[in-house]
């Protein structure tokens, strides 16, 4: 038996490969992590006598741009997986590269946003809303960076597995993709909650 069993063949008792079940269990814990912060936001906002006008405090155009970037990187990620699954290495490399580019662009826009806030004297210590804004978007940005590290590995040294064990490589791309799409899902909720309401 391999050191890591059931990486490509389905485990009979779960009906899944171990990495597939593992990533979903991990994401379940991530839902609760972000869920606790979302509920803290709702509790503090509903309990506050006054709350900052969010759409006037933050940049809606920049956040909309970031939403488009992250959604685009999600579709390039699934296209990268499709390229890997169909055995087209150049297609896989193109779309995985575009996914990495999307993640980098997202972080650049986020850095511009942060620097704008700091230049106007708006810090996490300014009020509860900004404390939650920086905590939620900062935690999300860390998740984007983590996803980019995994994707960069799969685009670089990780592709050695392409010829050695192609099915396992494709599964790795799918698992990394599931994580990347989760990061997109979190932003899909952060965008209206922090910028539009």
């Amino acid at each position: 038996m391999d050191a890591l069993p059931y990486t490509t063949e389905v485990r009979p008792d779960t009906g899944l490969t171990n990495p597939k079940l593992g990533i979903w269990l991990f994401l379940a814990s991530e839902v609760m992590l972000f869920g606790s912060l979302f509920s803290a936001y709702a509790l503090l906002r509903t309990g506050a006598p006054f709350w900052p006008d969010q759409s006037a405090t933050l940049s809606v155009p920049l956040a909309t741009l970031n939403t488009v970037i992250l959604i685009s990187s999600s579709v390039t990620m699934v296209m990268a997986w499709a390229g890997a699954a169909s055995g087209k290495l150049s297609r896989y490399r193109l779309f995985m590269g575009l996914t990495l580019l999307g993640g980098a662009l997202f972080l650049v826009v986020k850095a511009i946003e942060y620097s704008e806030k700091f230049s106007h004297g708006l810090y996490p210590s300014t009020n509860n809303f900004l404390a939650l804004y920086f905590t939620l978007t900062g935690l999300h940005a860390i998740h984007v960076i983590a996803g980019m590290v995994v994707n960069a590995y799969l685009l670089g040294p990780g592709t050695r597995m392409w010829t050695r064990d192609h099915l396992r490589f494709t599964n790795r791309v799918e698992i990394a993709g599931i994580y990347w799409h989760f990061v997109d899902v979190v932003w899909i909720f952060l965008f209206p909650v922090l910028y539009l309401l």
Partner: protein
Amino acid sequence: MSAPVPTTHAINVRPYLIVFGTLLTLTLVTVAVASLNLSESTTVLVAVSIATIKASLVAVFFMHLRGEKPMVFWPLGLTAVLFAALFAFLLWTEGDHLFGTKFSDAFGSAPKAAPVEGGH
């Protein structure tokens, strides 16, 4: 050991592109609705509903939940219950004043027209 699985197979990417277009459209709809200055409760309802639809599309198509094995849905179902419990607690404690937020500037200064709250 199960039967050998073919290592490559053709993938139909058309559904992914359709979902992509739908997600972009729903993003623009969210921004447009938020700019209409509807009541706070209506804006929250519409924005969260659209976000839920978008997240579901990503989960079902991009994350391949469509046609996934039942074992995946057990931990997700438990997570959904616990997530709902977080917000049920919120409704229990704050349910009588969920909406009607009085807005201030970024530094928390109260609007001039707003009544001044008394001390508790």
